[in-house]
Structure formats: structure tokens, C-alpha cells
């Protein structure tokens, strides 16, 4: 699709967003890529760093309150990125905010997830929200790939309108091992450490 190619070209021109496969190699295995989140271009940067054949089956998880508002953003999110929109604010009782993600995973798609839930000012990730834990429990065979997005917080810090051209690297770390009966806080800390580990 022309607009996707344009978007990828623009991201490469501005920030490079070249992949570095450190702990794993590109593979069509179903995966959840989870990364630190500091700028609006994170989603597109990680997505462009994937090889085209994987990109076609990998869907970014995007917040409905940002990507779902405005016709252009919504068009880019749904048509170009094939994003899964989720509601990160309060939802009605009884409905699970993760259910759109379950649907995507059931269909065999891979996901791109930012477990901090919101953009951070600093380079290293803050605390992770519980979503990743629930997905990991429900889909034990999906590979969990920690990803560190280097320099994107410098290129487009929170509050900036335009990204500044700074070379950013997308660093793919070692798949997160599964440990039986691990409790939620321990798992989330370990996942966060894995993202930090991919930074080195």
C-alpha cells in the first residue's frame, strides 16, 4: 500500500529505525513484541524495522483515545498499520479491555505492545501494566520478544510536535523464558528487565 510505504520511507529518512537482531532472528513464529514507549513514532519505528513478510502479520496495539481520534490518524492506524485499537481508560463492567487482543492472537497474528501503557520521559522503561502478564498466561506458546527502542525519546520527546532526525535503533532481545507459577509482579519485573537488557 502506497501510504504505508510512504510512512516507512519517512520514518527511515528521519530516524533510520534499523533493526538489530541481538537475542533472536526474524521468524514467522507467532510473537508478542513488547517495547519501551517514549514517543509517537515508536509504533511505526518498530513496525518498519520488521521484514515485510513479518510486518504483514504483525499488528501494533494502539490506544483508541490517541489513534482512534481524528479521521487521518484512524485511517493510518486501521488501514496502514492494521492496528488493534484498545481502550486504555475505564471500560464498562464485564467487558475485558484485552478482548480485541485475544481475537488477534486467536487468528494467529503477532502483536506489538507497549506494556507501560503510556509514553515516558526517560529512556529506560517504567513499570509495566498487567496486560502482558495476562496475554502470556493465556497464550503460553506465543514467543515474547523484548525490544528496546534506542534514542526515540531524544528524537521526539513527549510534548514535541515534530521528530528531530536522530538515528534510532530497534534492538530485538532474547525471547522471554516462561517460568511455571510465576506471580504477576515478578513476571512483569522480569519482562521489564528483559527490555533493559536489550538496551546493552
Amino acid at each position, binding site marked *: 500500500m502506497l501510504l504505508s510505504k510512504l510512512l516507512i520511507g519517512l520514518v527511515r529518512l528521519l530516524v*533510520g529505525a*534499523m533493526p538489530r537482531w541481538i537475542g533472536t532472528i526474524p521468524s514467522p513464529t507467532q510473537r508478542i513484541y513488547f517495547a519501551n514507549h517514549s514517543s509517537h513514532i515508536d509504533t511505526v519505528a518498530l513496525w518498519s524495522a520488521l521484514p515485510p513478510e513479518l510486518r504483514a502479520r504483525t499488528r501494533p496495539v494502539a490506544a483508541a483515545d490517541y489513534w482512534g481520534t481524528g479521521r487521518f490518524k484512524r485511517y493510518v492506524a486501521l488501514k496502514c498499520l492494521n492496528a488493534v485499537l484498545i481502550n486504555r481508560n475505564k471500560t464498562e463492567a464485564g467487558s475485558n479491555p484485552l478482548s480485541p487482543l485475544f481475537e488477534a492472537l486467536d487468528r494467529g497474528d503477532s502483536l506489538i505492545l507497549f506494556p507501560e501503557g503510556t509514553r515516558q*520521559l526517560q529512556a529506560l522503561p517504567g513499570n509495566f501494566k498487567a496486560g502482558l502478564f495476562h496475554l502470556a498466561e493465556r497464550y503460553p506458546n506465543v514467543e515474547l520478544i523484548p525490544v528496546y527502542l534506542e*534514542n526515540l525519546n*531524544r528524537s521526539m*520527546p513527549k*510534548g*514535541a510536535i*515534530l521528530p*528531530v*532526525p*536522530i*538515528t534510532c535503533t530497534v534492538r530485538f532481545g532474547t525471547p522471554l523464558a516462561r517460568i511455571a507459577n510465576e506471580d504477576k509482579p515478578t513476571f512483569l519485573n522480569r519482562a521489564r528487565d528483559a527490555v533493559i537488557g536489550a538496551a546493552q
Partner: protein
Amino acid sequence: MSPQQKFYWLIGGIVALLVIASLIGWVLRRRATAENSIAVIDNLNARVNAWWSMVFIFSAAFIIGTTATIVMFAFISFFALREFITLTPTRAGDHRALSLAFFVIIPVQYWLISDRWYELFTIFIPVYGFLLLPSFSALAHDAENFLERTAKIQWGVMITIYCISHVPALLLLDIPGYTGQNALLLFYLILVVQLSDVLQYVFGKLFGKTKIAPVVSPSKTVEGFVGGAASATLIGAAMWWITPFTPLQSAGMAFIIVLMGFLGGLSLSAVKRSLGAKDWGTMIKGHGGMMDRMDSVSFAAPIFFHLTRYFFT
């Protein structure tokens, strides 16, 4: 010979050189057995392959015309500044100053060349850029390391935009008896600088023993510099027929280009090391980043521009 014919002779010569280099690389690679010599030869071949692409892009821009050449150098400045800023520790408060540098200063500086507005071209960055960049940073209310941060941004802008823009600015010069051939002068500059780099590398690899500045640039040796500088100066002299110079003048100009190129390589290597890096980037396979190829050009271009303007216009 018409300028056109001269240009095709030049391209033919460069292509012939690259064919020879590729053949040598291929033979060396087939013969090599030791692990570290294989690494050196693979890097050599990667460099030669990158040269093919660079020569292709360059010639294409030249053939398309002046505007394409100017736009190409604007992009070179863009990628060079991107590398410079990537290695420089900036803070969120510099965001607006950096946006100004990338999205305003680069287009304006190169537009001034295509508009042939020489007076503003020479002072736009040293005066307006110099004063406005820190003002933008100051408006962000962040005083931490303010002088260091602004000094680094200024330096990056001077080297990657101001200095590099002096290459296409050669198109502005009105040299009597040389009308319509300025593009050849541009080719001459780039050719002498790059050949000097390549020959210094080759002489250094073959005969290099005495290091010139081991801390700043471990690959530079006295033998490499003398051999490379002397042969590049001779080649420069032999290229007099594409310049407005006599053979002797051409040798002198080539020598100054070589010397400034050497100093540029050395100084920017020191900058790179003080920023904690070995290469500026990874854009050009085998060479490193854009700045690893443009470091010598950035020092040679303004001096060559000025001397040509002073003595020949």
C-alpha cells in the same frame, strides 16, 4: 574538448579504476586463508562496492543538472548532521534548536546557493544561525550544560552544513574563461580529497609503521600520509585540464586540498572519539557513516572555495 566530453572521460577513468579495484579485491579474497586478512579484505571489498554506489549516485546527480547536485548535497548535510547529533548528548530543551537546524537552516543554506545569493550564503550560518540556535535552546528554560550543548550543536551545524555546502557553492563562482564548467571543479575537489583518503589508506596498509596520532586516529601513519599526499597531489596536477588552473597551480591546489583533508580527518576523528564512538554511523557499508566519508571534504571545501574565489575570479 567540450566540458561534456571531459566529464565522460572522467567517469570512464573512475569506472576503470573501480573495475581494477574490484578485480584486485576478488583475487585477494580467493587467495586469502588467514582469518584476520580475510576480515581486512572483506572490508576492502565492502568499501569498493560502496564506492560503486557513491560514484553512481554522484554521476547521476551531475548528469541531471545543477539543482539535482545541490539537492544531493543538502541530503548529504542532512545525513551528516543526523549522525553528528546522534552521537552528541542533547537534551529535550534542544528540540526546537535542532528542528531549526534540520528543517530551516539546511534548506535555506542550499536554496541560497541555487539562488546565487553569495553574500547571505557566507554569513547565514555564522551570523544568523550562530545567534538564533542558542536563543531557541534558551527559550526552553533548561540551563544544564547550556554552553556545552549549544557549542556542540553549533559545531555540528558549521561542519555538516556550512562547510559541506561549500562544495556545491563552487557552482557560484564566475571564473573568466571557465564559464559553464564549474561542475568539473566540484568533481576535481571531491576526486582529489577521496583519492587522497584512499591512497593514504592503501600506502598505510602496505608500508605504514610510524603512527602520526595513535590516540586520535590509530590508522593514520607517516608513511601512509606521505605516500598518499604525494600521489594525490600528482594526480591533482595531472587533472589540470578539467580546471581553470595551470598544471603547477593545479598541483598547489591539490596539495592544499590534501593537507586540509588530512587535518579534517584528524580533527573530526578527535571529535568522534571525544563523543565516545569509533565510526560516525553505519550508513555506508565498509566505511562507517556519512561523516566518515565527508570529514576530509568538510575541511578541504571551504578553503578550496575561498582560494579559487580569491585568485581566479
